[in-house]
């Protein structure tokens, strides 16, 4: 059994240590908000937070999580930055098909938590790892700036 901290609670799973965190949260724990997109950390659909830092769960073995706290899209709204990002995403109607958007929100929330007033260059750096096939990038950029202006 592997025990780790997920969305504020300790969870134990019967999983091999090399099983990527993505499949642990999706298949074993039933949290399907975190998406599978590429399996190679190329698209960002699987982004979660480890102690607040955005990481790609599709290539992170669950055994490597250790003592760090995992936050997924289902709980990111309980953080200040996550709440701001999610409400900005709705206010500006960022989503289209929506499949990549949990990952986009997770990357943006980690950015906003680290840099409350991100520049365009900061946004490029933090968000370039997240592909949106629907092409919502103009609105993602606008929504991050919108969230940064929220008190």
């Amino acid at each position: 059994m592997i025990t780790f901290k997920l969305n504020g609670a300790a969870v134990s799973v019967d999983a091999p240590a090399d099983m990527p965190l993505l499949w642990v949260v999706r298949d074993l724990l039933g949290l399907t908000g975190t998406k599978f997109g590429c399996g190679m950390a190329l698209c960002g659909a699987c982004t979660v937070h480890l102690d607040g830092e955005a990481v790609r769960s599709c290539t992170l073995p669950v055994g490597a999580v250790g003592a760090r706290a995992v936050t997924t899209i289902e709980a990111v709204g309980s953080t200040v930055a996550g709440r701001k990002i999610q409400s900005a995403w709705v206010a500006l109607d960022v989503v289209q098909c929506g499949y990549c958007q949990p990952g986009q929100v997770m990357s943006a929330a980690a950015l906003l938590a680290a840099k409350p007033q991100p520049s365009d260059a900061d946004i490029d750096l933090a968000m370039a790892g997240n592909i949106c096939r629907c092409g919502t990038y103009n609105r993602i950029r606008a929504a991050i700036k919108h969230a940064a202006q929220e008190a």
Partner: protein
Amino acid sequence: MSCHPLPAEVPDALSRRAFLKLGVSVGAAVGGGLMLGFSLPVSGRGRDRVPAAMSVIAGDGIDTPQAGVFSPNAFIQIDADGIVTLLMPKVEMGQGIYTAIPMLIAEELEVALDAVLIAHAPPNEALFKDPLLASQMTGGSTSIRYAWEPMRRAGATARTLLVSAAAARWKVDPASCHAERGEVVHGASGRRLGYGKLAGAAAKLPAPVDVTLKDPRNFKLIGSRARRLDAPEKVAGSAVFGMDVQVPGMVYAAIVSCPVYGGSVLSVDERSARAIAGVRQVVRLDNAVAVIGDHTWAAKRGAAALRVEWNPGRGAAYSTAAMRQELRAAVQRSGGVARKDGDVVAAMRSAAQRVDAVYEQPLLAHATMEPINCTVSVTADGCDIWVGTQVPGRAVGIAAAATGLAPAKIRLHNHLLGGGFGRRLEVDFIGQAVKIGMQVPVPVKVFWTREQDIQNDMFRPYYYDTISAGLDAHGKPVAWQHRIAGSSIMARFAPPLYHNGVDPDAVEVAADLPYALPNQLIEFVRQEPMAVPTAFWRGVGPNRSTFVVESFIDELALQVKADPVRYRLDLLTHSPRSREVLQAVARMAKWGTPLPHGQGRGVSVMEAFGTFLALVVEVAVNPAGEVAVTNVFCAVDCGMVVNPDTVEAQIQGGVIFGITAALYGEITIENGRAQQSNFHDYRMLRINQSPPIAVHIVASAEAPGGIGEPGTAALAPALTNAIHAATGKRLRVLPVGAQLQTA
């Protein structure tokens, strides 16, 4: 395929049982009402509520219609509590239709948009057929064109009956009552009754013979920005795509597919796969092997450990080079005539000068963000399918064929689509999943990895076009000859529509140019690739044709030293709406003002999908030959607009989709195998490469046009025209790729 009716390949999949369960009536008769088991909320009724997932996974409802539910047509149900549930005849794949259709209904039904619940429609060709596509299908940018009138009529019918029910209860003239925000109001007395309290009585009334639709001047919702109803759950991670389906007892199937299309399994060594903890079973199909595991990871590891020998079949040595050779030979043949105006040969002979060009466009994968997946449960007396599909009826058809079950025994549970782009018009993967499910004793989720999703895609065809123009002494084209060689998707997808050797999709735009051209000959030569399956791809025929004609018209303008915008305007004498969008975009982009060295502007204009659209793209090309798109401007006339916010979003997204394809998009084949596999070698535009995209919507009272595809379809020529302006180099082969790079 934007306006060609497709035959219904799949017979009406609706069983009497399902029909009764649905409890709705064809036409205007009032049904008994029912509760739909598959309806779950899309939008929260309270501001802070995170709504439940919007798809159900267990069963399709309650058998007996529930008394007191008002369901005057297939699209609307109102229960005794006043809860309004709208059944969507189109699927949501990002295009915003789950907001636009509720807007159309709510406009006439007089309910608040944020109070409605939304449900996916089950397969039912009789109830949900789109006449533009002759099928229950979502594609070809037809959804709003289809929905515009019938959805408003559905809302008006329901409202009329609710008003009648209230008037009867109050014993007043219905004309003295009106509906507003989910209530009927008697103006003189001030009496009000909510729709829920009227539902039971309204359900017993005969359908109105005719209803009056609002004058567009009185629209309250249509034409104003509405927030997407599906946004909250998509942002919260609770929206349920096919990939997210969880069925009790479900196992997972990873696929190892024959790397060559048309090949088959020779032998399988299962031992290593079976040794992996969590692997349960290995299932063989003709052209693939599935490893069944307790979770995705076990199945994936099992698939990686599997040793399969293949018979690659006749495609074993096939390549892009061979395909190009076939197309170059094919384009020498005369083809099916799509359009013939005047006498091209004589006009070409008498022309002052002649311009010829060859254009090539590559195979493209769809690469939806949600990889291909399908969950099935097959038992002796039925088959359940959980999937996101653009073609529910075809999905039932292939499952019925695979299982031998009657269509009535196939229960399809449709879901949100994590991108469609034409990929989910195909049911190859649904047939595969059902065949696997027939050999697995429990429900099974079949998923493709990204590598399989790209390499086993059904690709946008490779096209090879020759085009020639004869110009008169003033530089105007007097002869125009265009021959298109490529696969006919329509010949496979809807065979009756391929006739006289013409694929009506492939020649769209090419055979209906907005320009006034006196002598034209447009031909199609069908040349199927030996071992490459082909399919529709966002922008469909207009995408491929607009690249050729809007590049070539630019070449003609530059040949006679004319300004590309001016040259087009002079030829758009018969298309005032095209002229208007072209002039509008030229103003937006400050066309004609200087740009720094190494930068350039390009333009394109297109009429397709019932929409008129013009783009200006600005590029910067650095000394190394790398291209950056720095700005995009779009003016669009798509007729009357339902949700302007969605129009802007679809243009912006379509443009990004088009830039990705124009700069990077290319699948190549070697030894019968697709060479690209994931996002490192099948690249997508990323946020740091994305330009600002300004969209101007031209006000219009014309009928609505499609908006999901135009932005993509018109993008590539504006981009390559801009590259020419920046560098003097004309790119006639897509993608841009490394063609300009010096190192």
